Every structure is written in structure tokens, then in C-alpha cells.
């Protein structure tokens, strides 16, 4: 694994994010502080703007506000590397793309239609072996199980190790054991590499177990704090009891 030394001295500020689609206000004055080594879970009802917030951070959606990454020791802004695990991929079962092809397309400029380059192949095997899925390297991506695909995507997201890892509901289409495994892996990455993680999730029990901080979003930040604080907030019950 490409390890980054633990520092505890970085801070990511997502400030005053506003997104409008026509007249509709999708996100209003969203502010989030993330510290390295912390997992912040983003929860909220369907259509609350969770995915839009993530797309704004990635620069996919037009927004106002900014995302800054500061080195608190040096006291200056630095360029932030983002790792992202999408909800799903836009692929068919028979797509002639293997895990090597997928991985190399995102991390290398060496064309994947040319014969495999040994050093690149070995690097990908190393990165996949972090999650014990190196045997999948020559498998077609459409034929991976949900759990395998999530691990491949996680492996791509941490190559190279990012400062901020964004996980967009990464557990859809996986059984409960697979989900638990995934959370454990994410937790290990967080501890060993001291990176900030922003996780969008619907699984409130797992969020309670693994998140350092929870943010309840419904177009704006409704409340934030430790899982216990947020789960005890009357506004949390208002939203989630209504959903049920």
C-alpha cells in the first residue's frame, strides 16, 4: 500500500456550498469541516442533496462556495487529492474491460489497448492485494460480484492515497456481511493512512458504529455532531420517522 505518514495536521473545509437547479435550491450554505483520520457520515432522506454535494466537491456540478485543504502546521493551503468510490458503474455484463483495463485507465497514461506493461500490472496486483482481490485482475468488470467491484473501486480510489476519500453509498447491492466487511476495510484505511473520509450512507446502525461525526443533510445541514448527538436530536426523528 502507498502509505502516507500520519500527521493529524490537515484540515479540509467545505465552505458555503450553494447549488441551484433553476429556481430549486438543492443545497443551501453547506459547511463541513473534515480532519484527517476522521470519518464523517452524511445522512439524510432521499433527494436531500447528498449526491449533489459530492458532485459539487468533485467539481461535477455548478456551485458557489469552495473546498480548501490546509496544512495546519505549515499554515498554508495545499492541493488536495480526492479518492472517490461511486455508487455504481455504467457498464454491461459483457463489456470487454478487465479489472486491469479499468484500473489502468484511471491511474496510468499507458494505453490499455496495447500489450500489458509488466510494471503497471504488478502495481495493480499490489494495490488489489490490499483487499485480497488480486485474483480478479484479469476478470471482466461486468462479471465481478457486488463486493468484488466495490473493493476494486476502493482500491482505485486509494491509488495514490488521497487526502479525502469520498464514498457514495458504496454498499448498495451487497449482502449484510459484505457491507460489514466493507466498513471494516474503510475503517482500517482511515486508521492506517490518517485520511479524511466522507461517507454517504443509509445504514444508520453502521454509521453509528464507524463514524466519528454525523451530518444530517436536508438541502442544508440540519444538525451535526457525534452519532449519539445527532441520533438523539428531535429533527433526526422528524425526518427519519417520516421516511419510515
Amino acid at each position, binding site marked *: 500500500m502507498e502509505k502516507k505518514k500520519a500527521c493529524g495536521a490537515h484540515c479540509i473545509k467545505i465552505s458555503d456550498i450553494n447549488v441551484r437547479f433553476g429556481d430549486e435550491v438543492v443545497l443551501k450554505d453547506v459547511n463541513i469541516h473534515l480532519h484527517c483520520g476522521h470519518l464523517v457520515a452524511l445522512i439524510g432522506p432521499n433527494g436531500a442533496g447528498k449526491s449533489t454535494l*459530492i*458532485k459539487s466537491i*468533485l*467539481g*461535477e456540478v455548478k456551485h458557489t462556495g469552495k473546498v480548501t485543504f490546509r496544512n495546519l502546521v505549515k499554515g498554508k493551503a495545499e492541493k488536495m487529492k*480526492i*479518492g*472517490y468510490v*461511486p455508487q455504481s*458503474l*455504467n*457498464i454491461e455484463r*459483457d*463489456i*470487454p*474491460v*478487465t479489472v*486491469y*483495463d*479499468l484500473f*489502468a*485507465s*484511471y*491511474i*496510468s*497514461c*499507458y*494505453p*490499455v*489497448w*496495447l*500489450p*500489458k506493461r509488466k510494471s503497471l500490472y504488478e502495481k495493480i496486483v499490489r494495490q488489489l492485494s490490499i483487499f485480497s482481490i488480486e485474483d480478479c485482475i*484479469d476478470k*471482466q*468488470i461486468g462479471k465481478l460480484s457486488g463486493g468484488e467491484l466495490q473493493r476494486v*473501486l476502493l482500491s*482505485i*480510489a486509494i491509488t495514490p492515497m488521497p487526502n479525502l476519500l*469520498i464514498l*457514495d453509498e458504496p454498499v448498495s447491492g451487497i449482502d449484510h456481511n459484505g457491507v460489514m466487511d466493507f466498513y471494516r476495510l474503510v475503517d482500517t484505511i482511515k486508521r492506517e493512512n490518517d485520511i479524511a473520509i466522507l461517507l454517504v450512507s443509509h445504514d444508520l446502525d453502521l454509521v453509528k458504529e464507524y463514524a466519528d461525526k454525523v451530518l444530517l443533510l436536508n438541502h442544508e445541514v440540519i444538525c451535526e455532531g457525534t452519532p449519539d448527538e445527532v441520533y438523539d436530536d428531535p429533527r433526526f426523528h422528524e425526518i427519519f420517522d417520516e421516511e419510515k
Partner: protein
Amino acid sequence: MDLIYHMMDVLLPFDFISFTFMKNALLAILISAPIFALIGTMIVNKRMAFFSDAMGHSALCGIAVGVVFGFMNLSLSMIVFAVLFSVLLNFVKDRTTYGADTIISVFASIALALGLALLSLGGSFNKYNSYLIGDILSITSEENIFLVACLALVLLMWIFAYNKINADSISRPLARSKGISGKLYDYLFSAVISVVIMLSIRWIGVLLINSLVILPAASARNVSLNTRQYHLLTLIFSVVMGVLGLVISYYVHVPTGPMIVLLLGGTFFVTFIIHTLVKR
């Protein structure tokens, strides 16, 4: 050029190659088959078959613009038109909430109608009939030079940008997180498709161009397990069926374009059957 012709005479001692127009036609196929093969693989992966088809229809407008403005070189006017047209189409597509197919249809219909109207001014569309079904035997060595430039362009793109286009086609936000600007590569790829298709219209024709782009890749996809196999098989199908189609059409007196497409159609169904059998 004479040197190439001479080499062809020496290497290919068949009577069909003795004519200069057949030499030019064979060269055109050998140059453009790899172009179609390469862009076809990505057009099929990105589900852009409808876009490339629409570009073929819009080519008539590119020709008409060249004729109306009195361009000496129609290929040049078509290239300019192709780039502008694809950029404008993408620009509008990104700013509306209609499906891409609707916007492509709107643009292609207008371009086709405009092309037909302009070329028919004075009731003389007949002389442009060859643009509909193409005439490979009329291709000139100068047009082949444009095709070589096209091949170089596509190869450069495939060497420097293939991974990025591929990354964007699988997941745009994921590509974005790795610093890849999906939109930029989308525009670039669309412009290249348009240029390639417009330049090939003269010898393949509006009606068949898309088959040559889609069929080799679609056939290869039936039996490929990874990107390298996919490219190699697409290339083989495209070149072999192209050359075979030209030779057969010479002996049985069938237009070359339809002959090539029929052979590629056969290839698709053979690979499709293999795909179905292997899957079972």
C-alpha cells in the same frame, strides 16, 4: 505515389490491381479500416452509434456548405463543418434536459434537410447521388492523403487519450476525481468521429457509413474478454472484410460499400452465435 503503385504491382500480382482506381480504392480501405476499427470500439462502448449515424447524414450539409461557398477543396470545408457541428451539438446537449437522442435527431434532421435543399438548388441533386451510396472506385490519391492524416490523428488520440476517454465512459465522476475532464474528451472524441465520417462519405456513402464503424466493433465485442482482444479483433474484421469486399465486388459487379457491409453483417452473426454458444 508512383512508388506505392509500383510496390502494389509487385506485391499483388492480381489482375484487379492493375487499374489505378483499384489501387486507390485498396489504399483507401487499408487506411480507413483501422480508423473505423479504432473509433468503432469506443463508439460501441460509449453507446454513441446513433451519434455517428447522425453525423453521416449531416455530412451532406458539409458538402453543401462547401459547394455554396465555392470551396475548391470540399474535404477541407467538410472538416470545418464537422468540427463546428459536433461542438455545437454537444454544447446544446449539455444545456438541455432532453435525452441525447432527441438533440442528435434535431441536429441531424436539420443538417440533412439543409444539405438536400442546398444541393438541389436548380434541380441538380442527381450529380450528388454518389454521396448517398458512395463510390470507392472514384477515390483519388489526394483524398487518400486526407485519410492518412485522419489515421494519424486517431492514432495520436488513441495513444495519448484512450485511457482518459475510457475512464470517462465508465464513470464520469470517478474520472473527475482523478483529474480527468470528461467533457473535454467527450468534445474531442465527437469532433474526431465527425471528421472521420465526413471524410469517408464520398466513397462509402451516407447510407452505409455507420455500418462500417459499428459492425466490426460490435462483432468483436461478442467474443472479446478484454480491451486488447477487442481492439485486435475489431481491426482484423475491419481490414479483412474491407479488402475482401473490394475484391469480391470487382469480380461479381456489386457496389463495394454494400458488399463490405454484407460481409461485416455476416461476421456479426457468426460471432453472435459463438457468443451465445460459449455463454451456455
